[in-house]
């Protein structure tokens, strides 16, 4: 990707972010329930009409929709996403503090996923239509059909309740309590990734150069390790990057089960108590991360593939 394309992508990202923030802002505006009332009731006092009016004015809720959006957008430009209704802390601080646990979880599950699916995918491609392949394919099929929250609950009841290796209540972010949620996320993703590895390796195995190498009597193992795998890994690196992006937004269910204090569980709580500034901040932050990672993946792809570099 050249400079012009990168620039265009950056502009596109800004446009999409504007669109998404406008959309979520509209949603919070349309959604039933008055944030001022919810906020005051949460504090424990019965809101009087005067107090409600005052709070609404403080939050700027009495202004027209576009003015509210404009104010919010201006704040975002200067790094201020408003204050969380329910936690009374700046949204930015909350997002930053919840980001680390989610990132750790996402990276750990990516590592586990690669450890599971790369060997399985290669095995299944090399022994195509043998029993290994059928077994792996059956497993991947099962893997995409099982809801990850169920896997999470089963693992929790085995390792938390029966074996007592981890606490069921969760809440801590040490290494030991990272394992189960990471494995849960990894299982579901491995099913998809194994298929991709299998397809990528099969595609390389069908190339003419492999037939050529076989004709020249090069050992099958050498062909596989020296030629096929390096070539097959290239598209998989891209997929890995893309899965990181979707993982950051897809950890909510698992975070809730294991009480992992990351962004997903924070977002679910924020939505449940209609903490609009926090919800908006979360959606915007995830969108930015996701598109940023996608852009980086595309940029690194040109680096990794020499053929694309020459085309420039």
């Amino acid at each position, binding site marked *: 990707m050249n400079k012009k394309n990168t620039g265009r992508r950056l502009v*596109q*990202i800004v446009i*999409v972010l504007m*669109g*998404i923030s406008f959309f*979520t802002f509209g*949603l*919070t505006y*349309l*959604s*039933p329930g008055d944030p001022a009332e919810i906020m005051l009731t949460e504090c424990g006092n019965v809101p009087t009409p005067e107090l409600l009016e005052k709070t609404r004015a403080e939050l700027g809720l009495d202004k027209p929709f576009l003015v509210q959006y404009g104010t919010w957008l201006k704040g975002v430009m200067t790094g201020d996403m408003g204050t969380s209704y329910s936690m009374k802390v700046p949204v930015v601080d909350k997002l930053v503090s919840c980001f680390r646990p989610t990132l750790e979880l996402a990276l750990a599950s990516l590592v586990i996923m690669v450890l599971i699916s790369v060997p399985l995918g290669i095995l299944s491609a090399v022994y195509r239509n043998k029993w290994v392949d059928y077994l792996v394919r059956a497993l991947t*099929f*099962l893997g*995409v*059909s*099982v*809801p*990850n*929250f*169920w896997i999470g*609950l*089963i693992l*929790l*009841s085995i390792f*938390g*309740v029966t074996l007592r290796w981890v606490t*069921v209540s969760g809440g801590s972010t040490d290494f030991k309590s990272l394992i189960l949620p990471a494995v849960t996320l990894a299982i579901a993703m491995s099913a998809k990734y194994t298929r991709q590895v299998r397809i990528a390796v099969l595609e390389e195995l069908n190339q003419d150069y492999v037939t050529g190498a076989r004709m020249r009597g090069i050992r099958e193992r050498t062909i596989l390790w020296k030629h096929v795998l390096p070539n097959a890994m290239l598209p998989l690196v891209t997929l890995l990057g893309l899965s990181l*992006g*979707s993982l*950051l*937004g*897809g950890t*909510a*269910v698992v975070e*809730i*089960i294991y009480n992992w204090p990351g962004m997903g569980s924070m*977002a*679910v709580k924020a*939505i*449940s108590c*209609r903490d609009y500034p926090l*919800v908006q901040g*979360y*959606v915007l932050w*995830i*969108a930015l991360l*996701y*598109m940023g990672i*996608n852009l980086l993946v595309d940029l690194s792809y040109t680096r990794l593939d020499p053929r694309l570099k020459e085309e420039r």
Partner: protein
Amino acid sequence: MKVLRFLKNNKQFTVFLLLALAIAAIAVFAPWIAPRDPYDAVMSDSLKEPGSTYVWGTDKLGRDVLSRVIYGTRSSLTMTLCLVAVIFVVGTALGILAGYFGGAVDAVIMRIADMMISFPGLVLAIAIAGLLGPNMVNAVIAISAVSWTKYARLARSMVLKIKQNLYIEAAVVTGTKRGSIIMKYVIPNMITTMVVTAATDIGTMMLELASLSFLGFGAQAPTPEWGLMLNEGRTYISKAPWLMIYPGIAIVVVVVVFNMLGDSIRDILDPKQE
């Protein structure tokens, strides 16, 4: 006879079609199959282990888990089929509009689709379902809002390909109306691929709906719904593991059946795709 021969030649399809029909029958005839009323709370029988009286045990309120799982087939199937129907119709229609008319229509529809795709879907679905107010209809709306784009992109690209054919040109030259060109020539040539996509999507959509319900943004208590039941059973994970085993198995079985059915439909209609 023709039908019978077709079913005999496509054994995998037949088996999973029968299983899917059996699941649909369970949903339809739930009141006759379920041993008890799924809403009937018997507080004295709270959290009873599976046994002879309650085959799959009871939940916190003393409701029969087996009956609730059977009734849960209803909400899961209706919600999923509605969802797939909505994204199929909306996505395909918008894709055809974008592909056939091009220009500004195309630009607007596809930019919105691009926006939706450059974003993890479940995040937005959770936000939409939560903010609109948690219930089953809003959960369907939320997932539709983030899932139609796949169909729109596919339909658009197919229309663009079909439009290049001579028979379309001939139809235009002979003065056929746009509406009837789309109905008579465009849709019949693309419908197979779209149906295959929808059929293979049923399982995934069912899982997404269950996830939303599990998070509390879908079906609401006391509705018997599998995702919601798992969420309710979560609290009793050490005391009553049967509360999370049976609804989970129900989800897996139904999703596996529909995924296999979808795959065999794809193999029959569209052997090229894999």
